[in-house]
């Protein structure tokens, strides 16, 4: 891997974390394309992204709990229930052809872009910030 590639990966990693800290999105939406760019296949990139999310989330939670925003009990319910969903998700992802998974992921990225833009452009008064 060239120094330029490493620098680009580090910069994109930092940007993904920034997105996570600002918008509560885990960062995977940028990890996966970055890892694809580094040469991983779609499935490998997705699996590796999940591991990369852990330090990001740990840092994000540490900050947010300092501000008193984390509701621990609901988080535990959400997290424990998600384990069952994860099992089904892995079965589906490993049985789909990688080019199909890549296209589906592309649609997801587009959807997230639309959601971010909508949140930025909607009228201000709706929710207290």
């Amino acid at each position, binding site marked *: 891997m060239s120094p330029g590639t490493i620098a680009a990966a580090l910069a*994109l*990693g*930092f*940007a993904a*974390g920034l*997105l*996570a800290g*600002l*918008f*509560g*999105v*885990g960062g995977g*939406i940028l*990890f*996966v394309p*970055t*890892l694809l760019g580094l040469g*991983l296949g779609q499935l490998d*990139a997705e*699996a*590796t992204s*999940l591991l*990369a*999310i*852990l330090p990001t*989330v*740990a840092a*994000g*939670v540490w*900050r*947010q*709990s300092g*501000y008193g*925003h984390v*509701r621990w009990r*609901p*988080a535990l319910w*959400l*997290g*424990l*229930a*998600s384990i069952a*969903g*994860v099992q*089904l*998700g892995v079965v*589906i992802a490993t049985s789909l052809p990688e080019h199909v998974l890549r*296209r589906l992921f*592309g649609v*997801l*990225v*587009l*959807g*997230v*872009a639309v*959601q*971010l*833009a909508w949140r930025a452009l909607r009228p201000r008064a709706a929710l*207290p*910030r």
Partner: protein
Amino acid sequence: MGRPPPRSRFAPDRLVGARLRRSPAYDTAVLRLVLIGLVAGLFSALFGVGGGILIVPLLILAAGFLERPATATSLAAIGITALAGTITYAFHGHVDVGYAALVGLPAAAGAVAGSTLQQRIHARVLSLGFAALLVGVAVWLLAG
């Protein structure tokens, strides 16, 4: 923008707090959280993302959370989800620890910077910048 005053432990938005826990509403609250968690887990493992993009709006719309507690609580839940996903994928041999560290460790620094900024600015311009970046990524993925 000034900072909002610190919220009381017993503020109304503290879902499943001491007051709600004694009421029948607690049961449906847990059911909603479990359903949101199930969907988010499937989504997370299928796409290799945390699932916050799904959890945050669902917590706000279906579970009565305010935006910031929803964001923070989603992050904590994603920790469990991503750990479960990593372990499950590791059994299939897909997780590359070196690459995960290469993007994950700078991201931890980015997350600290991001959550600090969130307390101080309306991240409108940044938000639109990220949206534009993601449109570019989507075009690359869909056309490639």
